[in-house]
């Protein structure tokens, strides 16, 4: 059986080259990224900036979530906790303390990351469905905390959050001005996640996803890596929530509700798990649907449900995954 032998070395041609062009992007990824930048820069001249801001915030949120599920193989069902708390803290800081927007955003991101430390520490002890359940339970605790705590404004949430002046200089009160902050944070976050995935650290994450016992037997303390990835993901989710609070000028219980955790799963799944561009495409699809189908009221949920089922049944790789598969490239 020549196939199973070890010494004969006559492998076929290696698969398509994965040589990086810049910033760890392969050639097709670089092209896709440039297209993304162009779209981000051009679209506010065509589409309502307010809608675009919402889209980009959710896109960043989905990218943060995908870092865990796509590259470590951990399905969090409680990412709303970090997103929502990031939104509350940045909104509260901007409104009650009058801090500048960049400080409010950093506080929101830090809140997500800090919350991710104990939650992640608890959750990574388990995998699969148990991991998902623990993250969900912890997120529900955060939800009830937000219902009770006075600073969240209970059912009303924090409304009319002032965007203030960036660095105390640039007035962000117009949607058009705020859009560039959101776009900057989104692109920065996107690049950071891409770098994480393509770093020495990311290499270990992928190894853990593929075969954790083997990674342990090579001497990697895998729990430390998983926790680090969890905290990064939670921090980025907090960042997305913080920016969203300033852009939408509102932080409410919806942001910490479990349906928000479900929505980010849906976005990543529809876009393509474990692809770098998938969550962006998925978020764009879902947010666009929610906005432009809003007139159908509760039917939006039904439509989303149908799309979810279709995604799972027919195009399991997601939008970007399927495109990548058609073009035989990794996106």
């Amino acid at each position, binding site marked *: 059986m020549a196939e199973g*032998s070890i010494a004969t070395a006559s492998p076929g041609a290696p698969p398509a080259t994965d040589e*990086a062009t810049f910033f760890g992007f392969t050639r097709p990824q670089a092209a896709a990224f440039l297209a993304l930048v162009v779209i981000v820069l051009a679209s506010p001249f065509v589409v309502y900036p307010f809608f675009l801001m919402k889209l980009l915030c959710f896109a960043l949120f989905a990218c943060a979530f995908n870092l865990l599920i796509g590259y470590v193989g951990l399905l969090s069902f409680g990412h709303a906790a970090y997103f929502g708390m990031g939104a509350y803290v940045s909104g509260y800081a901007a409104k009650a303390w009058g801090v500048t927007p960049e400080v409010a955003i950093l506080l929101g991101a830090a809140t997500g990351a800090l919350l991710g430390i104990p939650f992640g520490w608890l959750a990574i002890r388990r995998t699969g469905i148990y991991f998902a359940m623990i993250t969900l339970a912890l997120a529900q605790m955060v939800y009830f905390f937000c219902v009770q705590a006075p600073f969240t404004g209970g059912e009303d949430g924090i409304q009319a959050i002032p965007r203030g002046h960036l660095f105390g200089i640039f007035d962000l009160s117009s949607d058009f001005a705020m859009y560039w902050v959101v776009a900057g944070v989104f692109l920065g976050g996107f690049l950071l996640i891409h770098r994480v995935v393509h770093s020495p650290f990311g290499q270990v994450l992928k190894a853990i996803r593929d075969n954790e016992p083997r990674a342990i037997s*090579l001497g990697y303390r895998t729990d430390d890596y998983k926790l680090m990835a969890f905290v990064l993901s939670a921090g980025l989710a907090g960042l997305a929530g913080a920016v969203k609070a300033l852009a939408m000028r509102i932080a409410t219980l919806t942001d910490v509700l479990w349906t928000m955790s479900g929505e980010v799963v849906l976005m990543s799944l529809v876009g393509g798990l474990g692809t770098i561009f998938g969550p962006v495409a998925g978020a764009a699809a879902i947010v666009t649907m929610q906005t432009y189908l809003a007139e159908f009221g509760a039917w939006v949920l039904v439509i989303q449900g149908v799309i979810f089922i279709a995604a799972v049944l027919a195009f399991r790789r997601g939008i970007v995954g399927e495109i990548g598969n058609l073009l035989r490239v990794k996106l």
Partner: protein
Amino acid sequence: MSDTILETEGMTKEFRGFVAVSDVRLQVKRGTIHGLIGPNGAGKTTCFNLLTKFLPVTRGKISYEGRDITNLKPADIARLGLVRSFQISAVFPHLTVLENVRLALQRARGNSFDFWRPESLLKQYDSRAMELLEDVGLTGYARHNAGELPYGRKRALEIATTLALEPTMMLLDEPTAGMTHDDVDRIVTLVKRVAAGRTVLLVEHNLKVVEGLCDTITVLARGAVLAQGDYATVSRNPEVQAAYLGTDPGIAGSTQHG
């Protein structure tokens, strides 16, 4: 330096009352190839998991290089130079063959928590990784995903990855399981070669492999040590013959796979 590198005393593992491994006393001499054999369900793999801390012991003590390692974590055992393989082929299927080996080399950097640095930093390990791949005849596969390799080559990759850690002692769990005759011979040659200057503890079902390879053999049956010694001694032991004949007829001699 003591003559014994790995030693267990009274090593016992119970699962809810079922005694999988009972009072095992094992002494592995430095620089030897030590075989751990026994019929199905004898507790070989459990022993392996206990030694590498993938399972905690119920009772007993394990020491390595004179140091008590009974309560260490599995990753820390690996850092001491005691590296294991797995019964099922243990590669990272979605990483390339080169990346598989590099992951072991990368660990030498300490902890790789630098998520802000580019992956290209790891290119410094490429030449060493290629040397290791050449050693096991996998050079041409370096850029393929490990998951695409045929079974025998996966095992070869696994050994290359293990070797990258420069282990003092290797624990191989059935390295020839599920292999064709040709592959078995190649793996035996490979193990012999890599065992130079190292200690190897090997779980094996295939007696032909053990005969040609091991200096000392410990026979397990129902979780306990039945016999210990070189191949000739062990294979003549009537208890061993009975244990093998009782559960797995035809292997009492050295005749499996001819």
